[in-house]
């Protein structure tokens, strides 16, 4: 049997991590060949939807490398990225796709050795996890759809506003010159991630065909009462509308959100 050779995409910031990778090369430090590097100017450039897209295309792992805190060429891009990846892992956890396939690490320009170690270790980890459920000829449709829902949720304004504002709100201060305790923010984010994910999941499901609350409850593994709550919230945002009623069962259909 051929050993599983994972496909790993690495997003490296131009100033520290990419230089670190170069240094590994100059120093002829060996590491597994599975990684394909994409250079970006700053790790903060990696919008949560980018790793999701990459996963949907079948990558077995995604690693984002940026400068160490304090070293960012753009001052704090890396710290913003840290929040995005944290949110993204929460989101992935809901989809059934292993969050461990995503990692964020800091690698400086002088850390050629560390770069190699990180890549080696991540490759090992992915090997242990095995192939992505979305790789190969028969990707798992359910997980693919879940990732699509996650992508849509990550594109929606609520998560973007929260993730974008997290550092200001928890580390500096909000518009009232108050700091929001991290735990409080985390539980809020948790709740919003869950709600947005489910809503976009429902949206995708009902896009294909009108569905009832019960059918949706089965598909998203939630109590019908909670699904109904989400539908009410989705109606307010014009994401969904009543399509028709069969007997005593209303069916809902997604509205196109452009």
């Amino acid at each position, binding site marked *: 049997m051929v050993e599983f050779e994972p496909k790993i995409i690495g997003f490296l910031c131009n100033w520290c991590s990419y230089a670190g990778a170069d240094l590994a090369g100059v120093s002829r430090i060996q590491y597994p060949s599975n990684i394909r590097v994409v250079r970006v100017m700053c790790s903060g450039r990696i919008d949560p939807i980018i790793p999701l897209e990459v996963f949907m295309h079948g990558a077995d792992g995604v690693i984002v490398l940026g400068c160490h805190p304090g070293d960012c060429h753009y001052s704090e891009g890396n710290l913003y990225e840290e929040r995005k990846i944290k949110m993204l892992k929460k989101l992935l956890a809901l989809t059934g796709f292993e969050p461990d396939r995503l990692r964020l690490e800091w690698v400086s320009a002088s850390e050629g050795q560390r770069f190699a170690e990180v890549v080696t270790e991540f490759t090992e980890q992915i090997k242990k996890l095995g192939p992505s459920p979305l790789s190969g000829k028969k990707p798992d449709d359910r997980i693919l759809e879940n990732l699509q829902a996650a992508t849509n949720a990550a594109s929606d304004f609520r998560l973007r506003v*929260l993730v974008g*504002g997290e550092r*200001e709100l928890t580390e500096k201060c909000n*518009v*009232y010159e108050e700091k929001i305790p991290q735990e409080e923010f985390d539980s809020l984010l948790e709740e919003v991630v869950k709600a947005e994910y489910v809503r976009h999941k429902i949206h995708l499901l009902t896009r294909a065909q009108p569905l009832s609350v019960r059918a949706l409850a089965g598909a998203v593994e939630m109590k019908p*009462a909670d699904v109904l709550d989400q539908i009410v919230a989705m109606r*307010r945002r014009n994401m969904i509308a009543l399509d028709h009623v069969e007997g*005593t069962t209303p069916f809902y259909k997604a509205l196109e959100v452009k």
Partner: protein
Amino acid sequence: MPEEKTDRKKIGAVLVVGGGVAGIQASLDLADSGFKVYLIDQGPSIGGVMAQLDKTFPTNDCSMCILSPKLVATGRHPNVTILTNAEITGLNGKAGNFEVKLRRKSRYIIEDKCNGCGICAQKCPIEVVDMYNEGLGKRSAIYVEYPQAVPLKYMIDREKCIGCGTCQEICKANAIQYDQEGSEATLEVGSIILAPGFEPFDATLKSEYGYGRFPNVVTSIEFERILSASGPYGGLVLRPSDGEIPKKIAFVQCVGSRDFQIGNNYCSAACCMYGMKEAVIAKEHTPSKLDATIFYMDMRAYGKEFDAYYERAQGEWGVRFVRSRVAGVTEDPKTGNLFVHYVEDETPRTEEFDMVVLSIGMQPPKNVEKLAERLGIRLNKYKFCETETFSPMETSKPGVFVCGAFAAPKDIPESVAQASGAAAKAMGIIASERGTQVTSKEYPPEKDVSKEEPRIGVFVCHCGINIGGVVNVPEVVKYAKTLPNVVYAEANLYTCSQDTQKLIREKIIDNKLNRVIVASCTPRTHEPLFKETVQEAGLNPYLFEMTNIRDQCSWVHMHEHEKATEKAKDLVRSIAAKAKLLKPLEKPIINVTPVGLIIGGGVSGMTAALELAGQGFEVHLVEREEELGGHLRKIQYLLEKKDDPKKKLDSLVKSVMENDRIHVYTGAEVVDVYGFVGNFKSKIRQQNGKEKEIEHGIVIVATGAVEYKPTEYLYGKDTRIITQHELEEKIAKGTFKAKNVVMIQCVGARNEERPNCARICCGQAIKNALKIKEASPETEVYILYKDMRAYGFKEDYYREAAMKGVIFINYEDERKPQVADENGKLKVTFWEPVIKEEVEVEPDVVVLSAATVPNPDNKHVAEMLKVPLTKDGFFLEAHMKLRPVDFATDGIFLCGMAHSPKYIEESIAQACAAAARATTILSKKSLEMEGIVANVSEDLCSGCRICEYLCPYGAVEMKDKDGKTLAHVIEALCKGCGACGTACPTKAITMGHFTTEEILAQVKATLLEAKA
């Protein structure tokens, strides 16, 4: 009453506390009568509970449809200042001159800048439980309570806001102010009206019904939101547990009412009707078959036309009624279905339902004790406001008045009537200061543009990004410039902002504009503002037109930028075609004779007369009988025991007779009424047979009602069978003696001939039964009833009577009691539903609770005034819900038992209400009417009378001119609906501002390209 001379100057302003429908009505009446009003509410907008309701009984009218125009009118009234998020912190001074201290919470929004576009709420990332939807949906942390809210100003929920700053970034109007602080204010007012409403009962306190534990048990107010088309489920009735449409719903009445255990002994007065209404509407809103069952103790459909509704609910709509107090509700956790446990026919029963609705009662508002303490008013034992029978709007503190559910649980029309009544009382004590706190607006003289070619100016609003983000506004402006007669067009960031008003005025003058168009949001809220602006620039306000490219274009075609732009162009082209044809309209001015005519001198008529006289108006009070007093003469004592009605009557008559401004005509009748609002001429035939002609500005109909003369139960054939009034007289005289008394309810009421309830007989029976028991506790008293309708606090006396041994026995129409004379002995046989047997008693006296029926004069009075009667023969008001004392015809009002049977305190409230409504007219030297009225071209009129017949306001009369009979529009009465013009076979009638030419020009311009 002689005018009081006090050291402290009185103030012509009133504070109204609470912005529900009662507070709104009181505010409008005061403001329309020349007083400054401060309307405060503790929430961010006015509207109260009525804004949450779906439909209203007994007409099934849409609640928002009828409330929203009142909200807008209050919000725009120059004499009303709305202070939201406000609470009273202190009160100094006394009646006529109060100093009120307020604390206002911060909105974190600059109200003057916020134009309510709502883009902030769309982008706010935080979701909060939406209490307007009773927790069944979500709203944003920056929000308005509901889309039609007044004032339409957003507010930040500081507790839930995380302070991300998104709203500030997105608000193009720069209205967000995060460091805005709460404020204190001091108001100087002459009187105060309390209308803080009620608090719905907390259903979790009745844990046996499972509310809060079983998702498919909901409260009635939640159910209102479920029924509402704008509610969480879009108006489809769904089970919260699984989103399925229920097939079977149970309505449980008296949850938190008539409940000794929890201390709410009183009846909440409105729940029977709203429960029935919810059942009916639920059936209407459900596509599949829905079974609705109402579990009740007594069906208290005591109001006007309520029993007719009850009949229809049972018959036409097929609602099932079960007379039983529900013992408990349990759930099948698998299905979420509910088991309702109850006792019927002495047998415990269990029935399965898909959903249960708890008809929750009314409680006093939250924190009411604090409010009472700060104001120094007394509360009753249930913590509602304490009032007396003969002064139902007066609190224990002079100058502080009350109305609405805070005085006692009540429905909307009763609240509205009482609110107008409270307004009369509040203005009464400061009548001398009328007009001192209000400022009237002066406009420059109007330019004559009749000889000019139309020169149209078009102002297209970006509305921040609300329109501009979808519609290509510059392109619309460019297009507008190409349209015929458009000489000027420009775009504005916000056309409604203060500085744009200035700019519009300048552009009108600089470009010699004589027609102005604003393409922006809805004319329903913004047209008055722009009309004012063009008027300030010397144009007739009817030379303004508006088209809605936001609510009906950019907001509803958000993703089709090009098509939306094309539609906006179509809309501008269409309205420009109309604008070209616009003609200046004159607002008819009608002089007002500041004199009132009141028909009927009972407690209602006398009260209304005293109120009007107190306001400084002359009154003619016409009574048919030899003496004043009416029905009140027959009342010997009260259920509430405190007051002596005889003494009250005497003092009322004395006040009326001694009042210089009141001209009393007894033994007289009104024989003819001509004219219209402000300008009536009537003939009174006096006792001496002579006719007197008087001029007056308004009419109040207070003709009262009479006791039904029974034909049933041997009445008239046997002297031992008497009516309640006859009994009352005997008791008062001390001539009544009996060992055994049977009272029979609903005699002459709730039958085929008169389907409606006579309302006061239940209270009367309880009152007299208590009196009998008081004098002779051993006398047996039976009351045979269909439903004991002891609503509100009268429930206390029902309980007292039962405790004192009065035996209440329910009978159904199928088994009416039988009264017979057997060998000189009276025998009453009736079915005893508990022991399930026919029972026979031998009473000494049988008392019939005879209905209160319309005054036979009503027909004649109605014909004379051209106002309608109900099928039963009572007078029919303009609108059963929101205009309880108005007729559709302006200037004519009604009150008391002419409207329907009612208790003294209710008649007094309505009488004061009629006086307040009349004062909105009498207080003005002249009335400025709406300019949009019908006009008759006399050359074309064929005198066919179709228009006269069609007009619901009696605004068309036929006049003889040069031998021809022609239609003539009484501009004062015309409301501008245009129904007459549409029906006119010779097209002789045109409607100002909505002429046929104008409408057709719009049609043609709209379809210009369709045809090409």
